């Protein structure tokens, strides 16, 4: 990657001469570069191949001019100088900056997507707080930089160039957008992940998987009789619910490959459900741990997850929570006597379908 380096003390050898053509060579060079795909980086040999400048000295002076006009940005790649094109409007904006603003812009530019905290910026540039605030405000109003709230330090304002996307360090992982959790995205992805893990760790067993009664055809009549008995008195055989071939039950697979954060992340990335976003193992672990809290997954050992299964469908809480008192909004106000008491309780009345005492 090309790392930005100071473009100010650019090598300046000779003053600009031989510039009496209709289109200045600088403009010509800029136009030629602009024809290339956007964002391309030019090395000296690329530029001399464009055959705008006749000598190296002339090329240097043209480049210096373009740099001064902010149309080119000087960078280095592995010790070799290289240049990148700026749009004319950007360059125009840059040209109108005050020196202070330009200094700040330069420093913000250097940190790229990581962003820089305003306090750190002040430390590097040694400007006064008032200048800093003023300049940052004007840079923001000129659409050159943007400020983002850091996810790691929520009270820090981080500055970075307008056209850049904030890095994950300050904007959070794939689950966050604009500093906040993207609830809709998280819901969708966790649903997909839950389904995936269920497929991995559970097996759907139909009610008639072991239909030995059907298999013994000659005993069918007897079987029928038994079924009838079961229908009549299911309580007698509490450990033998009726087999209905249409119902099926999820049970945990025997010794499956339990998914881990890494394996689920790989799977999700390979499916490319999150377009343009790469899910790291840490991100997936965060999501899976959250799903454990949500009681959608359970942790088997240190890193393995599986689906939570319940054998019964009906949800009962406990003796207290199921009683009227468990959900009573005035439970703390309820006394032995007085306006709110067991005698006058409307909730008991509803629950028991009896009359309560009128107050």
């Amino acid at each position, binding site marked *: 990657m090309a790392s930005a380096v100071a473009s100010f003390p650019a090598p300046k050898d000779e003053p600009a001469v031989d510039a009496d053509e209709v289109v200045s060579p600088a403009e010509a060079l800029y136009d030629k570069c602009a024809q290339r795909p956007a964002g391309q980086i030019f090395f000296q040999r690329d530029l001399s191949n464009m055959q705008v400048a006749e000598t190296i000295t002339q090329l240097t002076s043209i480049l210096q001019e373009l740099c001064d006009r902010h149309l080119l940005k000087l960078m280095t790649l592995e010790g070799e100088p290289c240049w990148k094109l700026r749009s004319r409007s950007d360059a125009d904006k840059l040209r109108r900056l005050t020196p202070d603003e330009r200094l700040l812009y330069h420093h913000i530019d250097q940190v790229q997507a990581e962003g820089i905290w305003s306090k750190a910026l002040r430390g590097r540039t040694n400007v006064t707080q008032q200048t800093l605030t003023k300049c940052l405000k004007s840079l923001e109003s000129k659409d050159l930089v943007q400020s983002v709230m850091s996810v790691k330090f*929520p009270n820090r304002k981080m500055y970075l160039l307008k056209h850049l996307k904030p890095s994950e360090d300050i904007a959070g992982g794939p689950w966050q957008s604009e500093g906040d959790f993207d609830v809709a995205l998280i819901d969708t992805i966790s649903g997909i992940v839950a389904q995936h893990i269920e497929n991995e760790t559970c097996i759907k067993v139909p009610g008639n998987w072991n239909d030995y009664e059907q298999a013994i055809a000659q005993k069918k009549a007897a079987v029928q009789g038994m079924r009838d008995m079961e229908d009549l008195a299911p309580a007698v055989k509490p450990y033998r619910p009726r087999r209905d071939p249409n119902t099926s039950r999820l*049970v945990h697979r025997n010794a499956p490959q339990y998914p881990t954060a890494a394996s689920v992340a790989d799977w999700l990335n390979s499916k490319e459900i999150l377009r343009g976003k790469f899910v790291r193992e840490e991100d997936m672990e965060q999501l899976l741990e959250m799903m454990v809290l949500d009681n959608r997954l359970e942790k088997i050992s240190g890193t393995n997850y599986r689906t939570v299964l319940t054998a019964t469908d009906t949800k009962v809480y406990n003796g207290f929570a199921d009683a009227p008192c468990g*959900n009573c909004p005035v439970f703390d106000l309820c006394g032995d006597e007085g306006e709110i008491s067991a005698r006058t309780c409307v909730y008991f009345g509803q629950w028991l379908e009896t009359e309560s005492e009128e107050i």
Partner: protein
Amino acid sequence: MSYTQRETPILAELCTFLVGDVYGELAARVYSVLARHGRQSLAAIARASYLNGRQIKYGLVILLQQHLIFHSGNDGPLTYYEIDWENSYGIVRFGKVTKLVEDRYGPKAANVMSNLLALGHTRIADLKEAYFPPETDSGDESDDGATNGAGSKRKRTNGAGVNGSAKTNGVANGIPSELDAAKPHTSDLVNGDGQPNGVHKPSKVDRLTHNAAPEEPGRDQGDSDMTSVDELYNLIQRLIEHGWIRTVTETQYLSPGDIHDMLYQESIEQDNHGITPTGAKDKETVNRGTLRRKRAMRDEWSSVPTFVRRGRANGSNKRIKTNGAAGGSAASSASSSDDDLVIRVNPEKIAVAMRTEQLVHLVQQRLGSVTARVYQTMLRMLESQTPRCWDEWSEPSDEPSAENGVDLRFLVTARDVATKLSRDRDLDMLEGLDPNVAVQITRKGHVSRTNVWTQPTDPSKLSLEEKTKAVDKHIQMLAEDPFHFVTWHSRAGFSQWHIEFGEIAKQMIQNEVENTVAAKKGSLGVKLIRALKKKGKLDERATCNVMMMSAPDIRGVVNDLTLQGFVQTQEIPKHDRREAKTSLHFVWYDRQRAREKLLHDTYKGMVRILQRIAYEREKVQFLLTKAERSDVVGNEEKWLSKGELDALRKWKEVQEKLLLQLFREDDLVATLRDFHGPLVSA
């Protein structure tokens, strides 16, 4: 103070209610004085109540007979009385105890237990005579003009309480002398007037021969009738061996505080040469000594007395002679030395059995009925070796390495379980398992794409080996569950497992807290509780990160749960100016606090249910009195109008519903209070 003896006002109210319900108004009045004022002497009780001395003494005798109060013994100049909160609360479990025993030992044992519960502590001879009256007893059984008006079962209990107490003086060895002095008065009181307690038995019952409650224990038992004295003795012995019944000694009347003082002194004298310990090391020695003595004392309570078996089979006479027991004759009318043994129900064992039931229920919900059945078998195998759920007086655990080796008695093998379960032919051992496992076990067929077994097999025709393998798979499922219902120990006997009850109990408590929060606040509340439990103290941003939600979504539920006392908040100032803006705001969750809060709420819910029952009864009081008239009983259809019958049925429904809920709340209390000691939050 002993953990179990800390009482809260709401528990006091609950227990007073229970005592009043079961043992009548007088006992409840005395009880409520003790509940309100704490440890009191006789004179102090008299000062604090409007009752006269005789009434108080009488009330105390009832309470002592039922082990609802402690007293400080005869040694001191003044006897103090103090409530035994655990036993008092235990009244609510009477029905459950009978059920638990019936499931395990059959209806006859359940009958013995329910009699013991009704009578309080009892001499074996009295129990025997209750079943096999020596002469035709003319105690008129139908005479129960109860003022309590509850179901007939409760009335019986009432009567039993009174009767028991009438001859307590002879029976119990632990009655303080000041009550002994009141013996004749007590008997007057029983037969006399102004007795609020309901059933009176005619004084024909000879107190001095300790004629046990002529109450007809076998009246409504049907086929559970005891056929012989030996059967009764065998049952009692079995129940003692398994820890359901224990012998009564005088130390059981001492409150935990008194026991501590007594044994602490003993420890000082014996371990520290009578010098009050000052240094840390001496204190440690004495504390350890005290705990050791407490344990020894408790073990003595539950030790099985050597029973003199009488007339059991041929040849037993010889043994009796060798033993030199009193009354060599094998005739059932003769008394033996066993007969003077005083026994009572062991409340600690009840909690163990309740734990079994609840664990099985939990497994049934999580993993299915067959796995639950396997687990039930495992738990019941361990039950007789488990005297209590947690040890209040355990050795301080600075040397856990010594405990690392699991006692062989607490191990269960898959083979044992399979052997036990193979008797049940209706059990489909393969249900709830992955079909691939079934294939693996039987080596027959394969599993089709729709997960159907190509070679269906009747599960009842599996060999023991195959069953063992299936059981092992079920046990593996138990082990893999996040509750870790079982823990692997070794490969012996196909696979050997033990159960870490302490850890499971902690999770059960957490589970109940989460259930309650789920009912109140939905899944978001549960998520918050779990996040805080996992991460500890969190500020708002960290909470958001863990739960992957935005702050405004969480604030509401944090606030609600804080108000309800399930989570706590804390503010730590950063500067000495303590500005709220710059302070750190934390939320955290403390299991022990949440547990106690929920326990407190549950007690309160139980009180409300009892109050509602009382109110509902009050509404139909007139009708109930009518329905209980001797000429109406049995002829309800004839004497009551249709409206009255409907009202009566409605009242029964309402009472049943409320009582059922009460018992379910009691299950919750058991989970929260009895299965695990205080949780020290990390």
